[in-house]
């Protein structure tokens, strides 16, 4: 079991190094000549005004909340999916109740207009 995760860690580590390697080559090879105008953020040719970290719409937040609700639920379904055949109808009914509660949640969010892009 720990060996499994050694593979995953190896992929993350060696992968990170291999991905960063070409960036080192750029650092060695590429020319450097920078002046203030070159560093400006690109706004279709006009001089950028204000900060880019401005307010953005709350609707992104609603969608991520709804996502969080379901994503946490999905984690519970994975182990259920594996053992369902062994446990039989009881496990199915239990999951049905669990999903019904979430289904009501989705219906409520839908009714309240949280899923509308306004």
């Amino acid at each position, binding site marked *: 079991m720990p060996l499994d995760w*050694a593979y995953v860690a190896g*992929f993350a580590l060696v992968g990170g190094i291999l991905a960063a390697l*070409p960036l080192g080559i750029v650092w060695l090879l590429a020319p450097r000549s920078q002046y203030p105008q070159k560093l400006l953020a690109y706004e279709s040719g006009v001089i950028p005004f204000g900060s880019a970290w401005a307010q953005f719409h709350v609707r992104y937040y609603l969608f991520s909340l709804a996502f969080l609700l379901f994503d946490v639920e999905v984690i519970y379904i994975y182990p259920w999916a594996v053992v369902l055949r062994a446990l039989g109808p009881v496990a199915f009914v239990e999951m049905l109740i669990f999903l019904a509660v979430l289904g009501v949640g989705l219906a409520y969010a839908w009714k309240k207009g949280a899923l509308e892009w306004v």
Partner: protein
Amino acid sequence: MVEVVRIVLSVLLVFTFAAVGVGLFLVLMERKISAWVQARIGPRHVGPYGTLQTLADLLKMLQKEHILPAGADRVMFELSPIVVAVAALMSYVVLPWGPGLIVRDLGVGVLYFAAVLSLEVIGILTGGWASNNKYALLGGLRSAAQMVSYELPLGFSILTVATVVGTLSTVRIVESQPYPWHTYPSVIVAGAVFLVAATAESNRIPFDLPEAESELVAGYFSEYSPLRFALFQLGEYGSLFATSALFVTMFLGGWRGPFELPVVGSVLSGIFWFLLKTYAVVFFFMWVRWTYPRFRIDQLLNVSWKILLPVSLANLLLAGLLVAWGG
């Protein structure tokens, strides 16, 4: 010690394949297919039939200046492309290339796959945010909204297969499939949902709002200099290949083909069928990309939350019902 060597070797092998078979080849394939759809010729001057075009592009990119835009967050700006590329390639750990040929057959296979692939959205979001550019920020936010929305139907269709098969291991999913593939209605519906959701997950037309070039310049990677942009591309094509390979694994019978190739043996012929099917699915994604126009963002989210999510949830319950009562 043997294991350490095996880990390093498998990482090097997979990354070499990812660089050549995915990075270089898929970009060329995309350009050739777009040319074919639009009745153009496409790249043809570098190498025979333009096959070395992407390599030439890469060499050019290596010589380009790196620019950190004024006011950008240096650490996040530098890390984001690496996170995106590595997250996409980490999912290759559980891809079964052929019989007995897999980097590591994790017990939680498909769950791991879904988990690392969704790490990509973090890199995209921080990359867009760190650029200090309004287009990039909006592109990153849209991308996050879209990717999390489509992750749910994707997850539910993976779960449907896991319920029917009763395992999460990718190798066992392939082995337990009847030849040529599952024909349960639930699995077929799950496959259709997976195909749509995977298109959206990899930010491709008709779901390419995050980088809609006519409204957001280039979206979250507007400010990135060439090689960092190439890393984002590697992540994008890497995850495109990975989701296509997972589709082949779960719905199209994985490495098994109609016949074993003569001479080369079962492993090599397994790789052949696996790659053939995967590139066919990739071709399908590219074909769709160059044929359809882009969705509006409200349509896009409606498709996910009001059609795909209820359908895939009901589909999962139906599959569970049949399995629980001895299907």
